[in-house]
């Protein structure tokens, strides 16, 4: 098998002293693999995702991203963050900067690209998410779906190897979900390694190589989408699926 690009090895994490949020997580993600993580709220799925670029710190076990182990070593963290793009539920665009400035910020200040090149790269990414005409506007002048696409473009400007999506469509009005999912499907088809926490089961069926179901900090089931949706192995998966697909 190919060398995994992300490897969780018995990762444990606690919030405070008594909330065991991740329990013995073992997970390997191959380059180019698309993974959807689902589960009830509070099951630790966002935390798992956020460990990958060290927004959360795991206390036990080992976590490797593209050959670098995540520890307290700040240089390792910087290294990993350059390779991992992240998209948040609340977009987290910088409201005081224009769309273009949001996109060029990191390439110019972290990547040390000249302004011209950074802007060219930013426009190319905006083109990719089909929103180039909004480059001069401020984020709050855009709709939710447009803002989330800008956020995806901003993450892509890092030229990442891995993209993390933390419930990217949960804060959107229903009619805007599709425009964001379309961009994500396109990205998946171009071979990006993706981990996505989402309740969009249609998206999971369409692009995921694997579905991971989490509950109470554990990975309860890891399966192909076809198997997971038609023939879930565990009782808890069945229960969860009946709740979200039941109407």
């Amino acid at each position: 098998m190919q060398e995994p690009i992300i490897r969780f090895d018995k990762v444990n994490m606690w919030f405070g002293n008594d909330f065991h949020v991740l329990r013995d997580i073992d997970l390997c993600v191959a380059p180019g693999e698309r993974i959807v993580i689902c589960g009830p709220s509070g099951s630790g799925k966002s935390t798992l995702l956020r460990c990958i670029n060290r927004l959360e710190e795991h206390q036990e076990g080992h976590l490797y991203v593209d050959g670098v182990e995540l520890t307290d070593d700040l240089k390792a963290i910087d290294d990993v963050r350059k390779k991992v793009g992240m998209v948040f539920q609340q977009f987290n665009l910088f409201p005081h900067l224009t769309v273009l400035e949001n996109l060029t910020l990191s390439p110019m200040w972290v990547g040390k690209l000249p302004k011209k090149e950074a802007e060219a790269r930013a426009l190319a990414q905006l083109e990719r998410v089909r929103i180039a005409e909004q480059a001069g506007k401020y984020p709050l002048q855009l709709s939710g779906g447009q803002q989330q696409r800008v956020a995806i473009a901003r993450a892509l400007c890092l030229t990442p190897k891995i993209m993390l999506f933390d419930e990217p469509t949960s804060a959107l009005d229903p009619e805007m979900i599709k425009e964001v999912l379309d961009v994500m499907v396109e990205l998946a088809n171009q071979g990006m390694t993706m981990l996505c926490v989402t309740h969009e089961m249609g998206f999971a069926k369409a692009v995921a190589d694997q579905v991971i179901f989490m509950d109470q900090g554990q990975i309860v089931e890891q399966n192909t989408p076809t198997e997971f949706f038609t023939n879930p192995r565990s009782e808890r998966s069945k229960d969860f699926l009946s709740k979200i697909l039941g109407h």
Partner: protein
Amino acid sequence: MNATTFEPVAARPAPVRTAGAAGWIRTNLFGDWKTGLMTLLAGGALLYVLPQVFGWAVLRAVWLPDYNACRVEGVGACWGVVAEKYRFIIFGRYPYEEQWRPLVATVLMLCLLAASCTRAFWRPWLVLIWVAILAAFFALMYGNVFGLSRIETDRWGGLPLTILLASLSITLAFPIAVAVALGRRSGLPAIRAFCTIYVELIRGVPLISVLFMASFMFPLFMPEGFSIDVLIRVLAGITLFAAAYLAEVIRGGLQAIPKGQLEAAATLGLSYWQTQIKIVLPQALAMVVPSIMNNFIGLFKDTSLVTIVSLYELTGALSLAINSDANWRPFKLEGYLFIAMIYFTFCFLMSRYSLWIEKQVNKGKAR
């Protein structure tokens, strides 16, 4: 079966005219009987008070610098006191025949301040202009160069001193305040503790006592023969005092930045300082512009307290001018009204400027 006939609803009357002067008066002053009553009462009071004020301040006022004319029964304001003493009020104890120097220095300083408030000057070279103009200011005021006679800082006074203290303490307090506000949220316990102690200590004492310490106590701790000019010590005192208050205002803005902004900056690989400078501070400061300007205006007027350590800025120069002359002593009120007008002019400009700044920083929020 009943035939229903169509009966049109009666047309509504045309809306009450609200445009034009008459319309404005009707809606705003006589909207209903309560508003009308209040309008009549307030209008009556104004009609009673305004003529009296006008009569005192203008019609019956004495404009000539003649104190005997001011003592005639039934005369109004004695503006003669300003006509007689304005040089002393504005320039304090600075030698009379050299007062063109503080005049030029003050005009230079005001030009510098006006330029600094203008977008076209927000460039790195503005710092150089500041350095040049401040050097010119001190050269003019202190002298001892270019054949100018030497004037010690204890002779400086009036408006130049007020403007120097206010503009320098504002300019210096701001970066200190930003640093302290960031320090109070630092991850390093030593820095956090230092900043917290600084803020609590300074906020816990009145400005007057800080000035006393800067002026009288500080020299006691210095080695023999070593001294720092009292003006500098007082300036440092005011600056540190103002910075403590300002730091808390800015910290309020920092608290209001959503955590998501920091997380987004982290995932983009920005360092701590890049995050603060590019993401956090621009948003945090924009949020607290009104409070910051509030502090600046307060600070501008607080400079009048340096009188108690024998630096005669505008307020101090006024009381010195009037108290030293028994003939004019009864007309203090007019003198105070005069400097009140000067203070008001500056503070009002600052307040208007703050509104403009607010508009500039809120551009991203306009839909």
